[in-house]
């Protein structure tokens, strides 16, 4: 029995080491100099840790790039922030209202509508990509932050609606009846009864939507143009550029900078993230 216990912890620690190894390699590479990277192994700790690569990834290096903008990732970071915050609140807000009306106000076709939304979560974005490009272009917001916010709301609403609708379905009918007898209308019931009840699910939806929007690549690539490049697109460009000598430490620092916001949200939110990720996994 004791022997088994050791094997159990041994296996768990081995799995933990294997999963954390790439993260460790990313961090330690970002703190090394290029000389050390060329002459050492990816597993060694940096002998002389420095944040030089981080600052180069963030501020850019204007001495090397030719003609291209040398702004580093800081401007894309700001773009991502400007996209995430409005898109987050709009998609979660819209999902809450839609989920509430579908679950509580039983009207004709509510179930058909829900089924249609559920299917919508699985549709690969590639299938609607080109018509969406035309729509955004016709609205005159292609290649801009408002355009990206709109496509994120469009792509997020199925997921947020599903989360809220499934939660509101579990609210006891008696509570709703009591509120209605007290004369609460559509919006009063929403603001004063349902929304306060849904705080935990609101947290889950916010965390997941933040992660999805921040981590998105395809929409940013397609709709961002030159001025609206979010962080993931900028990172991919930086790593993929064939300009001059590859600087792996700068690449890894840039990767770390891209990953940090969602990592922080994950580590701070813990359980809420776990609860939501299963429900939202279909979004991929």
């Amino acid at each position, binding site marked *: 029995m004791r022997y088994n216990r050791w094997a159990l*912890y041994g296996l*768990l620690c081995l*799995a*933990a080491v294997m*999963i*954390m190894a*790439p993260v460790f*390699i*990313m961090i330690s*590479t970002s703190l090394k100099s290029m000389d050390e*990277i*060329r002459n050492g*192994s*990816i597993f060694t700790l940096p002998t002389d840790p420095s944040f030089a690569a981080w600052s180069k990834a963030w501020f850019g290096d204007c001495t090397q790039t030719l003609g291209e903008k040398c702004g580093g990732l800081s401007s894309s970071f700001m773009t991502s922030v400007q996209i995430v915050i409005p898109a987050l609140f709009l998609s979660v807000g819209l*999902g809450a209202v839609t989920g509430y009306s579908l679950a509580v106000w039983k009207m004709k076709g509510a*179930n058909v*509508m829900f089924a*249609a*939304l*559920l*299917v*919508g979560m*699985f*549709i*690969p*974005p*590639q*299938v*609607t*990509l*080109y*018509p*969406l490009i035309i*729509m955004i272009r016709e609205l005159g917001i292609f290649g801009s932050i408002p355009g990206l916010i709109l496509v994120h709301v*469009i792509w997020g*609403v*199925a997921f947020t*609606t599903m989360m809220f609708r499934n939660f509101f379905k579990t609210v006891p009918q008696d509570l709703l009846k009591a509120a209605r007898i007290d004369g609460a209308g*559509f919006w009063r019931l929403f603001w004063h009864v349902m929304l306060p009840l849904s705080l935990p699910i609101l947290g889950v939806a916010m965390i997941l939507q933040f*992660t999805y929007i*921040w*981590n998105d*690549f*395809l929409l940013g690539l*397609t709709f961002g143009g030159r001025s609206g490049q979010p962080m*993931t697109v900028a990172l*991919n460009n930086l790593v*993929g550029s064939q300009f001059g000598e590859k600087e*792996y430490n700068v*690449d890894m620092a840039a990767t770390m900078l*891209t*990953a940090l916001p969602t*990592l922080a949200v*994950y580590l701070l939110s813990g359980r809420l*993230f776990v609860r939501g*990720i*299963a429900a939202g*996994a*279909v979004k*991929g």
Partner: protein
Amino acid sequence: MALIPAMTITIVCFYGFIIWTFVISLTRSRLLPVYKFTGFEQYVRLFANERWWTAMQNLAIHGFLFIGGCVVFGYFLAILIDRGVKAEGMFRTLFMLPLSMSFIVTGVIWQWVMNPGLGLQEAVRALGWTGFEFNWIVRPDRSIYTLAIAGIWQQVGLCMALFLAGLRNIDPNIWKASRVDGIPVWRVYLHIITPMMRTVFFTVFILMSAIVMKAFDLVVALTGGGPGFSSDLPARFVVDHILNRQELGLGAAGAFVLLCTVIAVISPYIYFELKKERGGRGH
């Protein structure tokens, strides 16, 4: 009234746009949509396209390895944690950590780890095993496997969490009974618990399939579809033809075929979800 925005999005941006894409796939559109219909010519071209078949074949290989790997490792990790370990929360947090990162981040990290010149291969050789070879990322016949490695690394935590939730729902009396009967723990898992978990396996399979079929970011960041088109996937084929190659009609045809594949895999799941709903309301 409050439903109008979401309804418009669903009807126009989901279903309307799918039809629009289908219509484009029936035309000869290249850079811009032109509505001169040519029937199923684009589909004929698509099925004659070697790169498309490479991508479809890769989808099958990647899907098999990725889903299989996630299910096997995820279930195994869930069982380990379910054995009642201390610091369970810490292990869970660590296993799910990669989930919070984007596929782009995952791809870039693994591209560096698998870098044949300075990455894992060199590091292992430096430890003394000089014949060690791990250069899959630059080998056309192996690059597709690197996608599964990086993909499993990122998603295994999700599978673990789903399986763990399933294991926690198992009636504790089963464990008591099996202990009384003296059945070894591994046999209880294999012959009793695993069959009871079939709905969880089904859910995991569907969720992972949805991820596989949409896989785009990971290929772009990890291999760029290369070397050549050796690790290309359908989702990347479609985006490439629509955005870069001025082959709108062909890309639309590919997108539509991709959608049909998704529907074929997903529809049993949707059916069960809706049936569950209807069953639940009966009470």
